[in-house]
């Protein structure tokens, strides 16, 4: 009795444990790929399959079934399930009866249930019956945990997101959870190894597991964690947070966390015309802060301000209402922009005038693509000296709007003290005044992403009259306020500024998150908005980035939709046949095979009525045998026709005399006396007897099987 319970425990305990481990492996795999219902179904499917295989795989009826048959059945189940999921998720009926969400959850659950059921059945059956199956199983569990944890690299504590988010929201250190997860994986693997009741191999397994863990620890100790690879196929590691800083409520509160992902590509610009900027940087204007809202500068809400900006995307073409002036000092440059992350407005090389929507060569990669026509400045400093300010058609009210600033008198005091030192020749020159202010900021400002100004009422004042430490927002706001305080109409331009050297001789220019910029602009009469950008000489941040020339080239090619790009993509995809195509081919073949089977079957069924009486003994008898084969009455290999007929007589007694007649005709002296046999009556009798003696489902199955005639021998 005691022994009995012991063996029962010895049998059921490892079985349940193994089922639990495999289920948890599937759960870990499913976590990042599906929703809650899918994960629950995954656990259920693998648990059921595990326990069922352990219980029945070596019991009597299934014992006879070959392993390859089980694997094939599992594959068939998978295909069927795939079709069923398609039915659930794509049919409108279910979605309208329940709700789209419920239908989706149902589909996901069904999908994962079937997947895990089939996969576990295959894994477990192989493990039960083959020598390599156990290894496969352990390998699978290990892989599941590794894949789940592989997102956590290079100390990226918040990856994978579903663990990081969970922990961070609750104030737990994600590292603890990750450590627990890793330990769980090791324990699971050890338990699986122990469940394998081969006493002699066990020590070796544990020795190898220990060696692996130890060498892993050693590797990390000496070489550190491996650098993360590219997260997607084109090596774009960036997140969408970069590039659209203007969507934030307070422009000063970004930049605090832009230290990582600063190399993330934001857009790629292809120059259709050659253009070199004079000051060494390409400026792309997207928008501008020009209206003072009582606290700080903001987007304008007035229809008559900033009419040179293109404020929205269209599907056709859009031209700015106001074009820049001094066309003889500008070059018309056509560029194509491919945005990799969404933006609120289109941006273009200063000064963009026309926006033309362009066909997107790659929907997966580019959020938007368009062409811009820009009037890029080619004038030098001297051209701006002695210019007047403002535009002719501005009303006084509008002009005043460009001069509004916080009521802090220190701006004006500082600005006036700065221009006081100008040489008398330039004392009244607006550009010279502006340059003086810029120079002050260049020499005294310290560029830093870390600053204490973000939560002040006026961060610009806090910066300008405080430690002069800040980034482009602070510099540009401070400069703009000072310009305005001495009567120079100015605004803050928003966009990107990319070093000209990044172009590296090519026509494509990669815009990265780090290039996001804000700069002061001044309106000179008959010229337009002119950028006067302070460039602090002291910097606390290393803003140098890898220009990623290859990516720049690649994205440029992609945007240009060049053949080289097509070649590249082909190279990437050659050898990989699309899964959908493969499935379609499989389905097509299946349908073709079914049609073929049914047509051969019906030919054999109707052949007796087509041929003459001297062929009846053969064709009609074959048709009768086909009917019997359909319901599973099949002659064994090597069995004589008489023996088979005696056996089949249980199903259809008429087959015995029919067989005798058939044999007399085919083996007897060929004197054709059996042509008088009424084969039609015989066949009718056989069909009737089969109907009486076989269950309905058997006959239904016979009808469904297009290849039942293959069993006729």
């Amino acid at each position, binding site marked *: 009795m005691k022994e009995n319970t012991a063996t029962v425990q010895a049998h059921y305990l490892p079985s349940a444990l193994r089922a639990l481990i495999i289920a948890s492996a599937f759960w870990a795999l499913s976590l990042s790929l599906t929703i809650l219902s899918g994960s629950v179904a995954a656990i259920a499917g693998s648990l059921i399959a595990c326990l069922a295989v352990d219980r029945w795989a070596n019991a009597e009826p299934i014992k006879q079934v070959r392993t390859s048959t089980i694997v094939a059945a599992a594959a068939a189940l998978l295909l069927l399930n795939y079709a069923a999921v398609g039915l659930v998720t794509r049919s409108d009926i279910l979605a309208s009866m329940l709700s789209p969400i419920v239908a989706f959850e149902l589909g996901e659950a069904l999908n994962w249930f079937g997947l895990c059921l089939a996969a576990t059945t295959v894994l477990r059956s192989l493990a039960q019956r083959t020598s390599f199956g156990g290894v496969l199983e352990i390998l699978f569990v290990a892989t599941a945990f590794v894949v789940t944890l592989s997102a956590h690299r290079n100390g990226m504590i918040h990856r994978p997101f579903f663990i990081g988010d969970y922990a961070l929201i609750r104030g737990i250190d994600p590292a603890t959870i990750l450590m627990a997860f890793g330990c769980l994986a090791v324990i699971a693997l050890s338990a699986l190894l122990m469940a394998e009741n081969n006493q002699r191999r066990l020590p070796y397994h544990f020795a190898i597991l220990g060696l692996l863990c130890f060498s892993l620890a050693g590797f990390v100790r000496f070489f550190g964690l491996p650098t993360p690879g590219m997260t997607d196929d084109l090596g774009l590691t960036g997140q969408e947070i970069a590039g659209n800083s203007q969507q934030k409520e307070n422009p000063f509160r970004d930049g605090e966390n832009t230290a990582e992902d600063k190399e993330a590509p934001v857009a790629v610009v292809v120059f259709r015309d050659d253009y070199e900027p004079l000051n060494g940087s390409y400026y792309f204007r997207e928008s501008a802060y020009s209206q003072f809202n009582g606290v700080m500068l903001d987007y304008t809400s007035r229809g008559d301000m900033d009419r040179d900006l293109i404020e929205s995307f269209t599907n056709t073409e859009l031209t700015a209402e106001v074009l820049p002036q001094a066309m003889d000092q500008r070059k018309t440059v056509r560029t194509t922009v491919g945005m990799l992350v969404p933006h609120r407005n289109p941006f273009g090389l200063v000064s963009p005038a026309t926006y033309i929507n362009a066909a997107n060569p790659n929907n997966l990669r580019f959020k938007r693509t368009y062409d811009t026509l820009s009037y890029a400045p080619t004038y030098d400093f001297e051209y701006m000296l002695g210019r007047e300010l403002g535009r002719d058609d501005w009303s006084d009210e509008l002009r005043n709007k460009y001069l509004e600033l916080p009521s802090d008198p220190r701006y004006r005091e500082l600005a006036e003290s700065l221009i006081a030192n100008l040489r008398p020749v330039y004392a009244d020159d607006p550009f010279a005044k502006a340059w003086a202010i810029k120079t002050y900021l260049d020499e005294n400002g310290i560029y830093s992403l870390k600053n204490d100004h973000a939560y002040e009422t006026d961060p610009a004042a806090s910066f300008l009259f405080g430690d002069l430490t800040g980034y482009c927002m602070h510099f540009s706001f401070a400069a703009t306020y000072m310009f305005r305080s001495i009567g120079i109409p100015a605004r803050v331009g928003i966009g990107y500024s990319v070093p000209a050297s990044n172009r590296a001789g090519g026509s494509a220019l990669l815009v990265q998150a780090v290039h996001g910029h804000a700069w002061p602009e001044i309106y000179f009469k008959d010229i337009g908005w002119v950028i006067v950008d302070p460039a602090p000489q002291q910097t606390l941040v290393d803003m140098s980035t890898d220009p990623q020339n290859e990516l720049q080239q690649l994205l440029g090619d992609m945007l240009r939709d060049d053949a080289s790009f097509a070649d590249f993509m082909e190279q990437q995809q050659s050898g990989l046949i699309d899964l959908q195509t493969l499935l379609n081919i499989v389905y097509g073949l299946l349908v073709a095979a079914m049609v073929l089977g049914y047509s051969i079957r019906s030919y054999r069924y109707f052949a007796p009525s087509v041929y003459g009486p001297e062929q009846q003994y*053969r064709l009609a*008898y*074959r048709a009768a045998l086909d009917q019997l084969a359909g319901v599973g009455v099949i002659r064994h290999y*090597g069995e004589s026709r008489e023996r088979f007929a005696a056996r089949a007589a249980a199903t259809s007694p008429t087959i015995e005399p029919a067989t*005798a007649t*058939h*044999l*007399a005709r085919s083996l007897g002296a060929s004197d054709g006396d059996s042509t008088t046999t009424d084969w039609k009556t015989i066949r009718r009798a056989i069909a009737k007897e089969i109907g009486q003696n076989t269950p309905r489902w058997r006959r239904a199955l016979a009808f469904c099987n297009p290849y039942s005639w293959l069993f006729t021998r």
Partner: protein
Amino acid sequence: MSTEILADSAIEPKAEQISQAPESDQDLAQSIDVLKRLSNSVKSRVLGRDDVIELAIIALIADGHVLLEDFPGSGKTTLAKALGEAIVSEDDAAEESADKEIVPFRRIQFTPDLLPSDVTGVPVFDTNTNAFHFRHGPLFAHVVLADEINRTSPKVQSAMLEAMGEKQVTVDNVTYRLDDLFFVIATQNPLDLVGTYPLPTPQLDRFLFKITMDHIDRDAELGVLDTYRERRDKTLAPVTVTRNEVLEARRNIEQAVNIHPAIKECLVDISRNLRTDDRVLQGNSTRSMVLMLPALQVAAALKGRSFVSADDIELLLPRVLGHRVEMAPGVTEIDRVLRDCMRPPMEQLARSTLD
């Protein structure tokens, strides 16, 4: 002179070449009737041995002999006697005095001290006529039961086997012809082998069938106990056939039962499979196949068929080849070897009927 003396052992053709379709059909029906009568007669006297009776009748009609492997008291003598007594000589047809020497049934108990002349007969000096007179031995009968044939010396065995093979005996350089219906049922005990002279394979080849008999089943055994008295008291079988009827049936069946080429192909393929099988030391002879054809025809006729079919091969092949095939050392499962070698040709044969 009572016996016909032949200078050489040429056997004249037995069958006349007359065969028209309806006539042969009629003849076949008659022959089948003869077979049925014969088997019914024997079956009414020997219970529970229907399969052996049928095989014995097949061998009888197919002009072969039977070797039974059996235990004492299992009804061999009853069987042989019943078979011998079911065949009567027609008095009017047998006007020759020689035929009077032919009796329906003889039994020879083989012992180590038996002499050939005890089997064949000896010339005896008749003082009345001052001449040697041949006294017929027990071989001059329709059915001869040679009991425990492996217990006698090879000399007697060879005399016996010559008689079986040539249907004649030679005594003092004079050859005496045996009856056309000469049929031997020989027996040997498979277990008690002390002091025996086992028959070598070439001699075994003389027997058409070697039949291993099992004990009869329970109901048949009960039947035997219930009815042994009536059957003992019954002196004559109610149904008999004449010697000439049997001989005619032999001719007719040979004529009328069709052997399809596919059947012959099947036989040859089985032989070839046997010869190439690793478990077989020496395969069967071509002669065994030739001998088998008439047996197949009779088996078919016994089933009421006018053609040989796979069923007949399944029935006869193990009995015909069982003692002709010599197995490799250590291989004992001859039935299994035969089954394995039969299966592919039999499958081929079955398929051929649908093509």
